[in-house]
């Protein structure tokens, strides 16, 4: 039986798609929200480190599965190799209702005002497609606030002189520091820096019917057992469903956007839970499947007017994929610094963003989420023996006596760092798979060294008896912070969508995920993706009332 025509199809029930579905459904549009994964709960996965979304040697607990999903990645010898979701070179995020927002660490950063006009601030950067965003921080500010209030953010910027300007306070008070945080706070103050609690999409007090955080050790990489962590699956998606306007179709893999002969989208094709190919027609399509999968879907949607993929006549879809060049340092201590108060990450410094003339961008520095026992087996100074007595002694001595400080370096967009579809390899459903390649810009490595130095100094001041840096190289596998493949811009020649996430070339297809980011900030991107969801969704709803997108 054919599916009933709806106003909007939203593809991907993660951060962006969850918010857009809610905005559209509450705005009166009929919506089908497609998700290739399904619902997950804490009880299904427990606190099993080996199948978490953080360390996943056995599988990625929160999707996608290895049986039906794979990609191609450079094999280091000018060829390609097949990689699976639980291998680092796949670059996985997640695939379930809520997607990354189920198992993320839930840092709730706003980008800095400067992040929206980097090119104006720093000038053109050779080897980079760096540009200004077509939307300013101040235009986006109300949408950041909406995300903070509807999902729930706990934060306290009192001691942060570099906090992005905000009209209203956070809806919940900030979190207290754990013992690492207390040690690091004192050290930062002695260095003349400005430590403050990391804003979190996590309840510090009961909020919107969900309880306060119980400080689990297993937070990042896991679902929350009490629902204190806000994801779209326990906030906006239930609101969307409650309107009666939105149907959530899980275990449904969208394979193609159908483009008619006039060059407009008329719906999508998807594989239903029984792997049967079906169609869903709609007045408009919103793609929010993550920077890699959004690009893959558009590139796979070939038609007469768009032989290179939907909206890709300028060849920019899939280009400029970014992530974060995570950098930092480890410190070993004589005394115990571990108090088992989760999620671990709690203290931040905004001192190293946009404040140094010879450093383009920068990034926030935070203490790291709790390193679980297996994860800790790989944390060693270089040259250490990774097994035997040395291994076991180090585990016993330092598991509770080490601190990790790191931060996401804002990457420069590079045109040849890209997502393509493989010409030969197909997934379980027969859909051409994504392949991701390209190297980081030299500037990313320069900034990574700069930030790692700051992290190491901070740890030394905190009393670490031994420290070492962990600086990334140019090889990158954009995963949970992937962004930039369908960037917004005013110039249709050098961007994919306009300032409202609407494809320049097809006016009834919108993007609402990290793909839109012109650059990815020196921060975890979830709150910006949520804010853009409200921005794009709000724009669609307003226009719908006036024009019905006809």
């Amino acid at each position: 039986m054919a599916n009933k025509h709806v106003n909007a199809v939203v593809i991907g029930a993660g951060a962006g798609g969850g918010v857009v579905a809610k905005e559209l459904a509450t705005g009166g549009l009929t919506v089908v929200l497609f998700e290739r994964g399904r619902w997950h709960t804490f009880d299904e996965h427990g606190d099993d480190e080996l199948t978490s979304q953080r360390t996943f040697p056995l599988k990625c607990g929160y999707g996608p599965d290895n049986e039906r999903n794979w990609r191609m990645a450079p094999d280091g010898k000018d060829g390609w190799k097949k990689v699976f979701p639980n291998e680092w070179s796949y670059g996985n995020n997640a695939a379930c209702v809520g997607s990354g927002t189920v198992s993320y660490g839930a840092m709730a950063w706003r980008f800095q005002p400067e992040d929206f006009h980097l090119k104006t601030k720093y000038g053109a950067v050779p080897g980079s497609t760096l540009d200004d965003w077509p939307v300013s921080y101040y235009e986006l500010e109300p949408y950041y606030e909406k995300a903070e209030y509807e999902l729930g953010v706990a934060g306290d910027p009192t001691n942060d002189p570099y906090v992005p300007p905000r009209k209203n306070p956070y809806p919940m008070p900030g979190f207290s520091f754990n013992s690492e945080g207390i040690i690091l706070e004192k050290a930062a103050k002695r260095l003349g820096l400005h430590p403050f609690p990391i804003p979190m999409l996590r309840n510090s007090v009961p909020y919107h019917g969900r309880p306060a955080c119980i400080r689990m050790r297993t937070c990042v990489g896991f679902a929350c057992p009490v629902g204190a962590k806000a994801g779209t699956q326990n906030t906006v998606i239930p609101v969307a469903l409650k309107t009666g306007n939105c149907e959530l179709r899980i275990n449904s893999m969208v394979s193609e956007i159908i483009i008619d002969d006039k060059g407009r989208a008329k719906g999508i094709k998807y594989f239903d839970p029984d792997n049967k190919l079906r169609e869903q027609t709609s007045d408009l399509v919103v793609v929010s499947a993550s920077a890699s999968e959004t690009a893959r879907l558009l590139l796979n949607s070939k038609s007469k007017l768009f032989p290179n993929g939907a909206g890709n006549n300028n060849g920019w879809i899939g280009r400029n994929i970014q992530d974060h060049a995570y950098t930092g340092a480890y410190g070993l201590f004589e005394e115990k610094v571990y108090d088992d108060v989760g999620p671990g990450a709690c203290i931040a410094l905004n001192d190293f963003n946009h404040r140094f003339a010879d450093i383009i961008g920068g990034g926030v520095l935070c203490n790291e989420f709790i390193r679980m026992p297996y994860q800790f087996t790989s944390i060693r100074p270089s040259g250490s023996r990774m097994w035997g007595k040395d291994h076991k002694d180090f585990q016993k001595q330092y598991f509770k006596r080490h601190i990790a400080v790191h931060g996401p370096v804002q990457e420069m967009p590079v045109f040849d760092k890209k997502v393509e579809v493989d010409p030969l390899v197909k997934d379980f459903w027969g859909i051409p798979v994504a392949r991701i390649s390209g190297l980081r810009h030299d500037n990313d490595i320069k900034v990574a060294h700069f930030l790692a130095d700051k992290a190491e100094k901070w740890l030394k001041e905190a009393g670490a008896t031994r420290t070492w840096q962990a600086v990334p190289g140019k090889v990158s596998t954009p995963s949970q912070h992937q962004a930039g493949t369908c960037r917004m811009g005013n110039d249709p020649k050098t961007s994919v969508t306009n300032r409202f996430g609407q494809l320049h070339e097809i006016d009834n297809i919108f993007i609402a995920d990290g793909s839109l980011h012109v650059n990815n900030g020196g921060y975890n991107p979830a709150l910006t993706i949520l804010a853009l969801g409200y921005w794009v969704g709000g724009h669609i709803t307003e226009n719908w009332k006036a024009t019905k997108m006809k």
Partner: protein
Amino acid sequence: MLISFNTACKNKISKWRYLNEEEIGLLDAIVEQIIPTDDFPGGKWANVSNFIDKQLDTYYRKHQLAYREGLAAFEKTVIQMKGKKFEELPFAEQTSLLEKMEAEEFSGNYWKDHSPANFFDMVRQHSLQGYYGSPGHGGNREYISYRMLGLDYPNVIGQNRYNDLSWRKYNPKSPENGK
């Protein structure tokens, strides 16, 4: 039902899923090197070989041949070099052999698709997973690694979500926990 039960008993169905008794014996000696016993038990007591065998029948099916061929090549190499099986050698001698394997200082006669160093690193990583991962996967007997690290569990009061717990205190001298 009864007939098949009797047949099963007679045929001595292995308790292992993919590896055989001899392979387990060798693997036990290797995992005990990777996580040796000190004041806390090592990889063998913690059922790390059981973890690996279980994964070879589930998540790590793709590594089945690597184990079969790697363990065989390792055994032959050791016999060629020392005239004895690996598990019969003194502990310190075993350690130095594994150091040679890690440093690719093995002769290549018996090694086809996998280099000795790659094989060692795979076993090393899987052993650490077995020792530190959830007991539900077949290793980390009685959450021994968590106790070693001083990690309390259940990890939230009133939220006992750990499985497969027997709360016997580990006593290295008890016959049950013998080496």
